[in-house]
């Protein structure tokens, strides 16, 4: 258990809300990998928590998540049920009922024998349920009004009276049609179980590879969800995109090619970079921005190296050889600078040294063969130069070793 587990979450904790949102995101991914139609696409947080578009039809899913071992069952009087109905009633003007279905996905069960059981099957007759829902809505509204008139406090059913009133306002024929479009998926996997469910759907791949593919797929999916919210991509994420990504990830894993795990990750807030990075850059007049960028790339490269080494110790040899390659490329430039600036002024030395750093940051990754065949990101070369600079295996100023030997 991490130390964070001992910290009291307090009354302002948003953990449940955050988990609820991540659940929506992962459920969207599960829906798309389960979809049978190639034109399927998923939208999050548009008309509903999750919206699945297939063949001109929409499936609007309301998700009710809980990590409880025994979540409260869904019954006719559940606030969750009525809030869900209200959410759908609110979007009815924006959708075509003929082309829209509604689904309540909940980790909670439906009690055996409950009238709600007809919602498990889209084709079951719903006449009895229709009457029971009407009676329940009427009871709630009546008791609420009576309670209010009697000055009761708290007023009965305050949490679902608006939902029940909205339901009663629907035309009977329309209500019947609306109910015929609703299904419930109870006892759904919770957020801890859902990655396993996603992995199970990747049947085209050997079982031992599914977990790794799922992990990488979830990382990519998270980013796509964020981009879709920021209008940096289409709102809908299509099944075709997911299929292509799965094939890409599987291919990378199959060829043992390396994935850039830290490309979009920033150092944690409490990260304290090695002071040597700044000291080396200060010798050549590097800007504060350059120091920050160098520190960030060093963290990314070092984290990547740690991850590879932890998973496969034999990567140590590959990392070491590549370090040698980086040092050699640096040496070719640095040696010339040292020779040509033997009698130069300090200012000239600093200018040339800064050029070497800027080469290591901006150009080296394009000039030095990549770490792996498929490796196209920049942070490994940039950051590994900083790892080597921390150990003074490389440096920027022509006289960096002598200058760093002096006390700061």
């Amino acid at each position: 258990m991490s130390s964070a587990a001992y910290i009291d979450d307090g009354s302002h904790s948003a953990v449940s809300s955050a988990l609820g949102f991540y659940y929506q995101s992962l459920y969207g991914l599960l829906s798309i990998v389960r979809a049978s139609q190639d034109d399927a696409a998923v939208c999050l947080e548009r008309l509903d928590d999750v919206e699945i578009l297939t063949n001109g039809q929409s499936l609007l899913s309301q998700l009710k998540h809980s990590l409880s071992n025994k979540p409260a069952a869904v019954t006719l009087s559940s606030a969750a049920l009525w809030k869900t109905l209200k959410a759908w009633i609110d979007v009815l003007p924006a959708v075509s009922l003929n082309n829209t279905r509604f689904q309540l996905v909940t980790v909670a069960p439906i009690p055996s024998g409950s009238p709600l059981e007809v919602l498990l099957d889209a084709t079951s007759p719903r006449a009895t349920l229709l009457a029971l829902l009407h009676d329940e809505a009427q009871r709630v509204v009546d008791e609420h009004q009576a309670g209010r008139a009697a000055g009761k406090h708290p007023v009965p059913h305050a949490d679902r009276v608006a939902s029940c009133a909205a339901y009663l306002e629907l035309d009977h024929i329309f209500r019947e049609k609306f109910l015929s479009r609703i299904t419930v998926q109870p006892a759904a996997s919770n957020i801890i179980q859902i990655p396993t469910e996603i992995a199970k759907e990747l049947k085209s791949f050997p079982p031992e590879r599914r977990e790794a593919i799922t992990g990488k797929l979830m990382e990519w999916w998270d980013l796509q969800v964020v981009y879709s919210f920021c209008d940096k991509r289409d709102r809908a994420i299509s099944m075709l995109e997911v299929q292509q990504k799965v094939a890409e990830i599987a291919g990378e894993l199959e060829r043992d090619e390396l994935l850039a795990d830290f490309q979009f990750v920033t150092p944690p807030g409490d990260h304290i970079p090695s002071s040597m990075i700044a000291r080396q850059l200060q010798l050549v007049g590097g800007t504060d921005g350059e120091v920050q960028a160098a520190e960030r790339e060093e963290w990314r490269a070092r984290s990547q190296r740690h991850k590879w080494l932890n998973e496969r110790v034999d990567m140590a040899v590959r990392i070491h050889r590549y370090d040698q390659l980086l040092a050699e490329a640096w040496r070719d430039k640095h040696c010339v600078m040292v020779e040509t600036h033997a009698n130069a002024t300090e200012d000239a030395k600093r200018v040339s040294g800064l050029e070497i750093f800027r080469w290591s940051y901006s150009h080296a990754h394009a000039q030095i063969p990549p770490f792996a065949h498929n490796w196209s990101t920049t942070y490994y070369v940039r950051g590994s130069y900083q790892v080597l600079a921390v150990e003074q295996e490389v440096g920027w100023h022509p006289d960096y070793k002598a200058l760093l030997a002096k006390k700061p």
Partner: protein
Amino acid sequence: MMTARDVFAETNPAFFCVVFAQFCRSYQQAQPVKRPPAAALIYLVVPIAISEELAHTFEGCNIDTGLAVWLHRSPRAVAELAKKVNLTLEITTAAIRFGCVTGTLRLTGDGDLESSLTKIPASVTGGVAGAALKRARMLGAWAAAMGSPRAVLEALGVSV
């Protein structure tokens, strides 16, 4: 040029040497005539027991599982094992050398490697190294049960 410090930290001979000692001790205990393992077998420990890559294949296993059952459950564990052994030759040799110099390991006249560590502190077994030590203990016992070092190497597809 020296190996970068982060790489050295992840492959430091002292840690590997303790894992090797665990493997040797477990092998020797499980071997019918209490013979320590051939030094060649030590080269399997880094890619199989120390790398986290195969950690999940040890889940649900114990000392009695045996190498054959483990391989049957996780046939892909031997994929590229020869390549991995080759890539970790130097690291393993450095750790064996460190162990012999510090007296943790002893190379016998028959080419076997014996552990001199009688007890590993709880602070080590219970720390981050605990899982690797546990895998090394299982692997040692499984290798001993195979009958001969050649049988182990052949089962893993790295016969010499």
